[in-house]
């Protein structure tokens, strides 16, 4: 049974949306909450019955998927690597320049600004999201009224497009009449001058990004929390543990694997943030709120500096893969162990 329960943490919504009778959520939660349990995706049940025919049909079946991924992602990315070593623009033959593009990028103060902005936004967004996610998951686990409706409410931002979210949050923090602005002034807090002050701009970007992605983090953590056996808490109660002790000694350690997975995925996905920034501030004022993806876009499609953009792109790829190294290593080992 356990073999089936190993699911990629990314599958969570899917499993929630399906198989109502089978209590998939609990399985998923089991997989996520068990410390040291492999929760990576493509791993086969070890006891699988061998289909007697050859493996040839399998190759045909994976062809469409592999073809798409190879032609639309893999080859283009390799080509970006090659482009990054060349000076090129539209309709112009690439000219090999070695590492010049990288030197140009790394000596561009706007690159470093966009890098530090990206790092700040990622750190703020992912950790606040995790904190909020744990909080909301705990709230749900302690029982909330009208749970189906509450769940629908918490997951609703998942359906919202980035542009609509930007419209919403910009309206909320309209400097003259926005609800958010009025709320801030009611509390006596400084107002968000997000279009003038880069720090405030990034803050609003972080806020709306958290709003958009909290459903993802929440569901992973909630599923993991549901999977913690109730008798652990009962036993702790018998021993006279306080609510805080239970959280500290039971909930937190058992939730940790799920938290790590959620955090890792959100690091990788928050790292590529583009639309929120582009639509809200366009990277301005004076290129002060640019993030890496916006920097890449501007270099390529506005300043026609294809080589520089390609170098940035290749750096993004390397950084993403480095972030994911731990996950990739586990995945690799597990997959080959299961196939051998």
């Amino acid at each position: 049974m356990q073999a089936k329960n190993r699911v990629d943490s990314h599958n969570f919504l899917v499993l929630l949306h399906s198989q109502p009778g089978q209590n998939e959520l609990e399985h998923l939660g089991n997989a996520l909450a068990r410390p040291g349990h492999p929760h990576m995706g493509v791993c086969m049940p070890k006891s699988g019955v061998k289909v007697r025919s050859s493996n040839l049909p399998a190759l045909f079946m994976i062809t469409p998927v592999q073809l798409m991924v190879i032609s639309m992602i893999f080859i283009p990315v390799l080509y970006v690597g090659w482009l990054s070593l060349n000076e090129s623009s539209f309709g112009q033959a690439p000219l090999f320049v070695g590492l010049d593009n990288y030197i140009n990028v790394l000596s561009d103060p706007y690159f470093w600004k966009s890098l530090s902005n990206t790092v700040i936004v990622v750190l703020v967004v992912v950790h606040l999201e995790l904190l909020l996610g744990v909080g909301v998951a705990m709230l749900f686990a302690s029982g909330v009224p009208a749970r189906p409706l509450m769940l629908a409410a918490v997951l609703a931002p998942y359906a919202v497009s980035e542009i609509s979210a930007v419209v919403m949050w910009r309206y909320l923090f309209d400097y003259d009449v926005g609800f958010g602005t009025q709320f801030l002034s009611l509390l006596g807090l400084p107002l968000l001058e997000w279009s003038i002050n880069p720090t405030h701009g990034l803050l609003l970007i972080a806020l709306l990004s958290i709003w958009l992605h909290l459903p993802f983090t929440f569901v992973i953590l909630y599923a993991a929390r549901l999977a913690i056996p109730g008798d652990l808490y009962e036993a702790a109660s018998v021993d006279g543990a306080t609510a805080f002790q239970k959280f500290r000694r039971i909930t937190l350690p058992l939730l940790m694997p799920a938290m790590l997975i959620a955090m890792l995925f959100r690091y990788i996905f928050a790292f590529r943030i583009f639309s929120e920034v582009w639509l809200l501030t366009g990277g301005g004022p004076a290129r002060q709120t640019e993030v890496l993806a916006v920097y890449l876009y501007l270099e390529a499609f506005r300043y026609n500096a294809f080589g520089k953009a390609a170098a940035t792109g290749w750096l993004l790829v390397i950084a993403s893969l480095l972030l994911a190294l731990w996950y990739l290593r586990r995945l690799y080992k597990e997959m080959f162990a299961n196939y051998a």
Partner: protein
Amino acid sequence: MPDFLRKILKAIAVCLVLFWSLVPIVLIVVSSFKADKDIFSAPPQILFAPTFDNYVALWTRWGDFFHALLNSAIITVGATVLAVLSSALAGYAYSRFRHPALAGSAFFLIFVRLIPPIVVTLPLFPAVNAMGLNDTHILLIVLYATFFVSLGTLVMRTFMDQIPRELDEAAHIDGATRLQILRKIIFPLAAQGMVAVSVFVLVFSWNEFIFAFIFTTTNAKTAPLVISEMYGAVEGVEWGVLFAASTVQLLPVLLFVILAQKHLVAGLTAGATKG
């Protein structure tokens, strides 16, 4: 902590969560029925005379938007069908066959998914232009599907694993071809998984911005793009029309997510009662 205090704190927490998730959405939807003077009145109007003016203005002055909405629908349906079918095929293969090459290809699928999408626009942009695929539906369909087949394959494999192997083996012995087994046995039994994958691809394709922004100009322009144009209009934002467009773009997919959640809620309740 006294019991009543705990209850009050919890009520406050529940309100905060609802507030956080719903207020931005409700605000847009409600404001789309407000006249211009009510949209930016301070303090905000809770009671106001509802009007359809913004929707009329959207219809008469931004006919472009409805064309884009149609494009979004075509692209979303196309990407969903492509992603679900190809993922289901691959998911079946990964569920039923064993080979080191398959392990390698499965690993490759996930590895590639970790690459930031914007990077591929650099080489694809000239290539797409050269092939005359710029501003076409098919390009966005393939791109959106591509960025979801890795996840889709994982999900389908998980669902296929739950279908007893004995079923397809029995059919095999009875002389059914692979294709018949897939079509008559596996796909119907994995329908839940296929619905699940569609939820992901559909929500993503309907809302996607970067690729649409870079690869379309007029013909295949999608709804989020037109909304962003309204938002960035030089002569000042017409908020009422913008709210109306956002509402029209948001509501179908919001309803879809809420409907798909019924499965989720049923699963959760079952989980709670079983302990």
